[in-house]
């Protein structure tokens, strides 16, 4: 897509690569130029970014339950190395 004009359809196809910083500076610049004049694409970009952030933050709150940890330690016979978490 290096010489292709950026439009709403092809921007969508490179959105992930753009978010991940995988595109050339030149292509990033043309994408940013397009988004500066296209509310539709700016919203898709902002809400996609926010989607990733929210899913990441919510999922990362998952903790290993104490009983699950204890059964894992027992199964692996690691009681001498991994002590129960103090209450």
């Amino acid at each position, binding site marked *: 897509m290096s010489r292709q004009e950026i439009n709403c359809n092809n921007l969508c196809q490179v959105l992930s690569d753009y978010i991940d910083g995988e595109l050339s500076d030149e292509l990033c610049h043309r994408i940013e130029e397009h988004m500066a004049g296209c509310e539709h694409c700016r919203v898709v970009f902002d809400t996609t970014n*926010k989607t*990733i952030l929210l899913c990441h933050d919510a999922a990362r709150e998952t903790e290993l339950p104490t009983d699950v940890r204890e059964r894992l330690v027992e*199964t*692996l016979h690691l009681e001498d190395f991994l002590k129960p978490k103090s209450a």
Partner: protein
Amino acid sequence: MVDKTDEEFSLQALRTGDKAEFARLVAAYSTPIYRLGLKMLADPQEAEDVLQTTFLKAFQHLPEFEGRSSLSTWLYRIAANEALMLLRRRRPEFALDEEPEEGAPMLPTQLADWSHLPERDLLSGEARQKLDLAIQMLPEKLRVVFLLRDVEGLSIKETSEALNLSETAVKTRLLRARLNLRERLALYFAERLSEEDHP
């Protein structure tokens, strides 16, 4: 996006069955592996099965681990395979995923800008349930890519190694997963936006 790096573990000790070193590995990666299992399967018992099987297999196969990928990628690979196998067992009559690999990704249809909603809306208990549900609704092959890349923080290359996919296939699936999730969340958050405008 695990805090410890491979450099902090002695591969030699792990390969020779050093239990103290293995315990350090378990302590570092048990939460991420459990989280991956839980988000893949949405079932705490099956997530625990994934966790236990992953470390049992890891201990068994560490002597043969050649270090072609990082330790963490290798553990995620074992866990992802276990989770996908459990999903296959749930409904053996279906192949995983009917999502086509080719063709253009879905084009966005929900265009409300909810990204600036207040935190109380974005992080409410109900919103978190919607997030979980949206992830569960993803086809399995997209879900596992999204979880490894965007939740666990693996690079595209690491994700491709963990899933034995080309980097191009990872990128294609990641784009589909992200747009799919965005679309589902937009439906929910657009309603919150409407309530903000018209309380």
